[in-house]
């Protein structure tokens, strides 16, 4: 089940149901709106990525990233056994995870993209994902975040008497989902 199949499925099901439900005009319009929105988003990314990759370059040259990835060394080599310890991909992944943990979402993505580029250097089949890439994506997909700031803010404006009461429950749920993701990836890599 690749992204391509999911994509085709979403397109066909969407258009088919649009015709069936009689709102096909709105459905097609939503597709075009999506295209425009994606481009607008990317233009915003140009600035954000530049800022964070600029800072990352400084962190790299100064040895800060090396220090962080050494601290996470054991954990990183358990997750990504195929990536050499000193490889720059480790540093970029360490930065990405650090940013994610602290909820710096717009910093995490450029670090993550950089990590993927480094992982691609180690890849022999350039259009097929390596185990390290899959694992990295799965961890990113399950959001290991200490403070879910957006949700806390939303709860506050919705009139919650204690908006941050979900910090503890979120942390436990996130640990469960991340652990399940890691185990699933470790098991599935044998067959797929």
């Amino acid at each position, binding site marked *: 089940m690749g*992204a391509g199949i999911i994509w085709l499925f979403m397109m066909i099901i969407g258009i088919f149901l649009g015709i069936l439900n009689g709102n096909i005009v709105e459905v097609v319009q939503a597709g075009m709106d999506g295209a425009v929105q994606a481009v607008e988003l990317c233009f915003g990314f140009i600035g954000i990525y530049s800022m964070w990759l600029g800072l990352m370059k400084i962190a790299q040259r100064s040895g800060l990233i090396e220090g962080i990835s050494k601290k996470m060394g054991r954990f990183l080599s358990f997750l990504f056994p195929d990536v050499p310890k000193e490889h720059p991909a480790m540093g970029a992944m360490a930065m990405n995870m650090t940013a994610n943990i602290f909820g710096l979402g717009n910093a995490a993505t450029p670090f993550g993209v950089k990590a993927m*580029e480094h992982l691609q250097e180690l890849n022999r089949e350039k259009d097929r994902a390596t185990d390290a890439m899959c694992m990295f994506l*799965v961890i990113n997909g399950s959001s290991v975040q200490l403070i879910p700031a957006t949700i806390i803010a939303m709860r506050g404006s919705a009139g919650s008497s204690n908006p941050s009461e979900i910090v503890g429950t979120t942390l436990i749920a996130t640990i469960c989902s991340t652990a399940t993701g890691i185990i699933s990836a470790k098991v599935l890599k044998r067959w797929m």
Partner: protein
Amino acid sequence: MDVIEVISKYLLPLFISTILIYGYTKGVDVYSTFIEGAEEGITTAIRIMPYLVTMFIAIGIFRTSGAMDIFVSALTPLANIVGIPSEILPLVVMRPISGMASLGIVAELFSIYGADSFIGRVASTAMGSSETILYTLSIYFGSIGIKNTRYTLIAAFIAEFAGFIAAVAVCKFVFA
């Protein structure tokens, strides 16, 4: 609440100034190094554009078509077995597809049931413990031209579902 607010406010400036000051004390030419990195940022952002456009078209079409309702009714029996309330199901379906749409669902759940209701708390917990997988996937794999993503999506979906089950269980336990 105050502590958390303070942390979220000062974390970013702290992060940035740590990198800058540490770099400066290690003798890095921070200004021209930053520019070098910024250049990479520009090419990266442009490179992911076609992948994001492609995915967003499908997300727009899928969301508007009402396909979600079908998925919700298909998932209902499975959700009943593992104890996920049916009110939460639209969130389960939308969470991996679109961050904006799922925040919209959470806002709706808050206005119907209240942020401090069981549904509101489960929705908050589940929302905070998951990510928009399809979006992350199209950016990350798109940036390096990977077409065969192997088991990534399945593992990510399993993880997401486990997160929702955990959210229900933990909220039942903590807020009982």
